[in-house]
C-alpha cells in the first residue's frame, strides 16, 4: 500500500517539477516583464546543449548544468540589450521579434550542430519500493523545482534588488524618478528569466533526446502554467503548477497520456474562462 502512496507522490512530483522548471523563467519574462518570449524554448534548448557539450568535454554534470544556466542567462542579457529592449511598449511586436529569433536559432543549430546529438545518459541511481522502481534523478529534479521557487521568493520578496525590480515592473517611470536604474533592472530580470530557462534545459538534458526543436516540448506547458498562474507571478505559478500537476497526474494514471494532456488543457480553458486574471487573483484578494 505504501508503494502506491509513494508512487502517487512521485508522479505528482514529476509533473510538478516539469511544470515549475519549464515555467519559472517565463514567469519572470512574460508574467512580470510582459515580454511574450516565443524564444523561451530556445533558451531551454541552449541550456541542454551547453550541458551536453561541457559533459562531453569532461566537466562534471552538476558544474556543467550551473555553467549552462549562466550561459543562457548571459545570452539573455545580450538579447535583451540588442532586441527585447526596443519592444517593452509594444508587446505584440515582441512576440514577433522573439518568434523570429526562435526560428533563426533552431535552424542555425540544425545547420551548425546537426539534427541529433548523442545523449549523456541520466546519472545512475534507482530505488525500489514495492513492485515499482524509481529513478533517483527525478526526485533531484523535484528538489531543484522547489529550490527554484524558494530562490525566486527570496530574491524578489526579501532583497533590495527584488523590491526595486517589482517597483520597476509596476511603474517604471515612477521607479526611475526615485532613482532606480530601470534599464539595468530590466536586463538583469530578463537574464534571470532566461537563465532559469537554461537551467530547465540543463536539468532535463540527461533525460531527453537532444534535437534543435526540443524546446517546443516545454513551451506549451510553460505558457499554460504562467497564464493560469496569473498576474502575481510569485504567488500564482506555484499553485498553478500544483493544480495542473494533480489533474494531469490523475488523468495520466487512470486514462493514459492522451486524456492527461487533453484534460490539462481543458482545465486551463475553464480556469481562464472563470478567472481571467488567473489563480493568483483569488489568492491575492483573500490575502488582503
Amino acid at each position, binding site marked *: 500500500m505504501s508503494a502506491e502512496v509513494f508512487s502517487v507522490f512521485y508522479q505528482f512530483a514529476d509533473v510538478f517539477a516539469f511544470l515549475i522548471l519549464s515555467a519559472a523563467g517565463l514567469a519572470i519574462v512574460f508574467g512580470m516583464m510582459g515580454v511574450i518570449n516565443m524564444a523561451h524554448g530556445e533558451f531551454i534548448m541552449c541550456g541542454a546543449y551547453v550541458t551536453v557539450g561541457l559533459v562531453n568535454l569532461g566537466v562534471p554534470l552538476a558544474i556543467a548544468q550551473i555553467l549552462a544556466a549562466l550561459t543562457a542567462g548571459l545570452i539573455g542579457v545580450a538579447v535583451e540589450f540588442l532586441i527585447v529592449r526596443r519592444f517593452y511598449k509594444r508587446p505584440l511586436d515582441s512576440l514577433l521579434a522573439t518568434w523570429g529569433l526562435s526560428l533563426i536559432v533552431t535552424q542555425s543549430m540544425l545547420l551548425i550542430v546537426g539534427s541529433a546529438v548523442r*545523449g549523456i*545518459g541520466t546519472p545512475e541511481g534507482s530505488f525500489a519500493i514495492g513492485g515499482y522502481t524509481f529513478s533517483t534523478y527525478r526526485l533531484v529534479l523535484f528538489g531543484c523545482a522547489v529550490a527554484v521557487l524558494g530562490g525566486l521568493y527570496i530574491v524578489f520578496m526579501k532583497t533590495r534588488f527584488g523590491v526595486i525590480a517589482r517597483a520597476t515592473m509596476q511603474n517604471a517611470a515612477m521607479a526611475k524618478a526615485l532613482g532606480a536604474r530601470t534599464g539595468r533592472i530590466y536586463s538583469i530580470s530578463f537574464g534571470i528569466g532566461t537563465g532559469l530557462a537554461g537551467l530547465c534545459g540543463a536539468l532535463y538534458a540527461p533525460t531527453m533526446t537532444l534535437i534543435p526543436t526540443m524546446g517546443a516540448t516545454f513551451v506549451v506547458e510553460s505558457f499554460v502554467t504562467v497564464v493560469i498562474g496569473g498576474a502575481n507571478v510569485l504567488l500564482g505559478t506555484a499553485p498553478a503548477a500544483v493544480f495542473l500537476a494533480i489533474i494531469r497526474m490523475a488523468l495520466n494514471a487512470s486514462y*493514459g*497520456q492522451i486524456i492527461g494532456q487533453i484534460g490539462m488543457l481543458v482545465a486551463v480553458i475553464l480556469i481562464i474562462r472563470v478567472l481571467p486574471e488567473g489563480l493568483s487573483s483569488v489568492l491575492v484578494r483573500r490575502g488582503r
Partner: protein
Amino acid sequence: MNSGRKLGMVLLGAMLGTAAGVSVARAAEPPLKVGLLEDVSGDLAFMGMPKLHGSQLAVEEINKSGGILGRQIELIHLDPQGDNARYQEFGRRLLNRDKVDVLIGGITSASREALRPIVDRTSTPYFYTNQYEGGVCDASMISMGAVPEQQFSTLIPWMVEKFGKKVYVIAADYNFGQISAEWNRKIMKDLGGEVVGEEFIPLGVSQFAQTIQNIQKAKPDWLLTINVGAAQDSFFEQAAAANLNLPMGSSIKVMLGFEHKRFKPPALNNMHATANWFEEIDTPEATEFKKRWHAKFPDELYINDMGYNAYNALYMYKALVEKAKSIKLDDMRKVIATGDACIDAPEGKVCIDPKSQHTSHRMRLISVGPKHEVKVEKDYGTIQPYWLGEIGCDLTKKNDKDQYTPSHLPKKS
C-alpha cells in the same frame, strides 16, 4: 576597335555558338524530374536527413553512369518540415507546377496519407520509401519499405517464444501507431498471447514517469515500443534510469531511428527489431554501399533503413523505366505485372509484388546488447509482401485506392 579584339569577339562568338548548339542538342532530351519530399528540419529531421542523402547519392551515381534511358536526373527536393499541410502544398507544387516525372518521399504515415489523394488525381508514380503499418492498395503508389508481414509476423512470435506471452504496447497516437498496435493484437491473439496494456502517446510528449509505472503495474514479459519522434524517444532514457529493464521489440527502432547511436548505453539494451537494412550488415555488397555513402557524406551518424530504401527507390525507378522504355505509370505497371520488376540492392535481390506493388525483402532479426552492439539473431531470408494479395487486393485487376487493416478488409466481390 583593333583587329586583335575583333578576332577575339569572333572567336568568342563562335564558342558561344558551339555551346548553344550543344545545349540545343541536350534540350531535345530534357532531364527527368524527380520530386522529393523529405523532412530535413523539424522534429523528424534526424531521420529525414539520411533519406535526402540516399536520394542524392543514387542520383549522382545514376547520372554518372549515363542516366535513365540516356536522360539525366534532376532532383527537386522540398522540405515539408514534418507538417502534413505543407506536404500537400509542396506535393501539389511538384506535381502541377514543376510537373515532376516521379514523386518520392514522406516520412510518417500521416504525411503519406495526406499526399496519396493528391497523387491519385495525377498519372505520376509515387514511391513511398519507409517501412510502415502496411495495407495501402493503390496503383499510383509503389512501396519500397518493409510491412507487417515482414516485420511483425517475424518479430512477435520470436519475442513470445523467447520472453513470454504478455506484452505491453507503447505507441505513437496516429495512424502508424494505431494500426501497428492492431497488428500486434491480431498476431498475439493467434499465438495465444495477451496484450496486458496499450498506451497511445500524443506526438511531442517527452515525459514518461507515469507510463513506466503503468508498465510495472501490468507486469508484462516484454514491451512493444512503436513510439515515434525525438520527444517520445526520451522514453528509453527515462525507462533505463528507472531501471525498468524489460526486453523490447519494435518495427522502427535501431535500424530506423538509430537510438543505439543517439542514446548512451545501456538505454537500448535488449531491444529487438526485424529489418531489411541496418548499417551493421556486413555482406560485401553492403560494405561497398556503405563505403560509397560515407565517402559522399562523411558526417552521417548512421545510414538508416529509410535512407537505404530511398536510395533503392531511384534504382527501382530506373529499372522500371528502362524495362518499360517509357516514363508513363501505366507502362511501368505493365512491367510490375510481369513480376519481373527487380533490382540487385545492397541487401540482395528485391522485387515488386504485382498484386500490392510492395517490395520483397530479406529480413533479419537483430538485437542490441548492453554496450549497444548489434547482433543478428535470426535470418529469415526473403519474405514476400503477401498479406494484401491474400486478402484480395490485386492491382493488376482493380485499383482500390484504399488502406486495409486487419479490421478493415476489402469487401468480397
